[in-house]
């Protein structure tokens, strides 16, 4: 997922000049990059025509099926009424086709609270994930391109922080926010979301690779201040990394469940995850309305924006993944 892997052998990667010998643009940076003649006979497959392997294809097919079946179930189930859900098999359509009706009901049930949850989620994503990405860019850039005492310590802390599950921090965070009087408000969800150790780490690695120090030096010699250098020179180079981090933080915030669960009491501030869960648990309540059909339709609607974001951003994301793997 990080973009560095194969180049680390080239010494200090940011300053290293192109290794001599092989033409730029070679795809085989990793194994063919060494110029020594190969003694083994080359394997059958060539870059243009990948080899076929039956067991691998079967395995991939199974994995694909395993991944897609729940999604298919979700889409199919969203077309059924509450009664239809109980009557028919999960993986095929029932007699009723109630998708549009379900969507309508999802948005109107309980005075249209679903729309409110959707807007809340968007708010948390824009401010939380957006803010987290922005902070990760600033921090990653600083760590990659500036030398200061304690850098190694910061590195250790960031790597350590990646390993701490957010769940473990939720209760202490709750107590802290409670003392500050911020619980049960959107800030209680947004502020903790601003911290993304993994995003910072990713930006750090990416900035190390993607911004040549010479470029920064040139900008400084030309008289640009640090801010100008950052925004005009560094930021455009970081774009693929930014998109990647944004995607990660967006998904993390969009799916965040535990933090809002602990922080929020008022259903008006719920994100979608929490709202759908509360609909689901109506089935466990005495006299509660059982609305599995709306929970399913709501879940489907909830993943649509995420799928949209992935499709829209995937080309940036992919180029982000590949950046740095090839020396030019």
């Amino acid at each position, binding site marked *: 997922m990080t973009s560095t892997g194969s180049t680390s052998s080239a010494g200090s990667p940011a300053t290293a000049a192109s290794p001599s010998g092989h033409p730029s643009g070679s795809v085989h940076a990793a194994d063919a990059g060494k110029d020594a003649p190969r003694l083994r006979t080359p394997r059958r497959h060539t870059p243009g025509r990948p080899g076929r392997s039956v067991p691998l294809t079967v395995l991939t097919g199974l994995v694909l099926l395993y991944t897609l079946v729940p999604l298919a179930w979700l889409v199919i189930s969203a077309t059924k009424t509450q009664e239809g*859900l109980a*009557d028919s098999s999960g993986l095929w359509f029932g007699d009723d086709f109630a998708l549009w009706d379900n969507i309508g009901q999802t948005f109107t049930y309980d005075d249209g609270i679903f729309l409110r949850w959707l807007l809340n989620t968007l708010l948390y994503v824009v401010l939380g994930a957006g803010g987290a990405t922005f902070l990760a860019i600033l921090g990653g850039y600083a760590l990659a391109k500036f030398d200061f005492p304690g850098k190694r310590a910061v590195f250790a802390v960031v790597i350590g922080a990646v390993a701490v599950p957010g769940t473990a921090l939720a209760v202490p965070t709750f*107590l802290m926010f409670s003392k500050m009087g911020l619980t049960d408000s959107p800030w209680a969800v947004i502020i903790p979301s601003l911290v993304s150790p993994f995003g910072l780490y990713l930006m750090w690695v990416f900035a190390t690779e993607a911004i040549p120090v010479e470029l920064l030096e040139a900008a400084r010699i030309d008289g640009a201040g640090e801010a100008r250098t950052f925004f005009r020179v560094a930021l455009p180079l970081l774009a693929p990394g930014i998109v990647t981090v944004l995607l990660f933080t967006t998904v993390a915030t969009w799916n965040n469940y535990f933090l809002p669960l602990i922080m929020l*009491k008022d259903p008006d501030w719920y994100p979608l995850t929490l709202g759908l869960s509360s609909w689901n648990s109506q089935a466990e309540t*005495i006299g509660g309305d059982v609305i599995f059909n709306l929970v399913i339709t709501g879940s489907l609607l909830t993943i649509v924006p995420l799928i949209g974001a992935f499709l829209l951003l995937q080309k940036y994301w992919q180029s982000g993944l590949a950046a740095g793997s090839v020396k030019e």
Partner: protein
Amino acid sequence: MRRTHGRLLRGIALLSVLALGATACGGSDGDSSDQKPVSAEDIQAALKKGGTVTVWAWEPTLEKVAADFQAKYPKVEIDLVGERSGDKHYTALSNAISAEKGVPDIAQVEYFAVGQYSLTKGLTELSPFGAGKLADKYTPGPWNAVSDGDKVYGLPMDSGPMALFYNKKVFDKHKIAVPTTWDEYVDAARELHKADPKVFIANDAGDAGFATSMLWQAGSRPYTVDGTKVKVDFSDAGAKKYTDTWQQLLDEKLLAPVNGWTDDWYKGLGDGTIATLASGAWMPANFVTGVPKAAGDWRAAPMPAWTEGDKSSAENGGSSLALPALGKNKELAYAFAEYANAGDGVPTRVEQGAFPATTAELRSEKFRDTEFEYFGGQKANEIFADSAANVADDWAYLPFQQYANSIFNDTVGKAYVSDTGLAAGLKSWQDASVKYGKEQGFTVE
């Protein structure tokens, strides 16, 4: 009554309430002793003055009750925060108590959890408000659950005297008689499954609430609680009755391995593959909303007896309204809790399908004669009310029942998925509960 999934949440909620709550409670130790009696006049004055009461409760019938209350006392505002899941509810409550901020004035607390909060002094003692006088209004089971000697920690909201719900259509189809004893129940389970391999007599994938209710009915009293002295013992005769019988059903794979309250469960209740359900008297409301297709198929019957002719029953589920110690507006909060659970709110709630804990309602002709359209016009309340009268009132839950229930599946649950017997499972549940109790500073035998 509500199933308990998020064990993680439980753990964290407990961790916070026990670890941090200890400090929070340390500060308020003296409070209960200098609590002055609150007279009816004080309460009336508070009602006149008005204010806001925050209520954390999921009970849907409270909405109408709150509206009525506000109409009666226009200066009082009831802020009903409708949390809809037990786990989240207790997590939030424990967290708020630990943080000493945002604690509601009234919280819905299930009977099994009352001990936990009252012991850590998280709940206001209600006798100074005159709650002791209400004892006679309630059936013994629920009252026993909210009180400890003279001390009262909540007002019973509903109760769950058990009954056996059965799918009459399925029983009629296979010409099998509805069991009246648990031995007959096992026989019926065999016959049903033989007649149609898709049909199971019941679902059970290991459920702490159900198991404790069954033990309760069988006469087992595994928990004895005296202040911080606790005893856990699953070796009595009652427990043996339960494990011997239920083990047969497990061994012969006569129970559908379906968790309650899931969509599979609702499906099974609807399509006849789950033929009976031993549950609390609040269940009809859930049949109506959750299993609409099977309307007319189901009926209620008295719980099967452990020995023929025995009428003993037990409670399953049920909850109270309690006043967290850190809540405000105590007079107003008490006034509302009493209105909802002992006063005019009770008939309003019964009308909407709640099952009362008050004897007056349970005994009234109107209540007993109610015909349940869902049960084909059956007067099911007669069965429920008789069951309520036959509940033994000496049952006690652990002061850390929430935790104990959360480890049920790791201990007793093994009997459902492997060859570990139920009895061995109960023993390991006992050991784990004892261990936890000791760690929490209880004197455990």
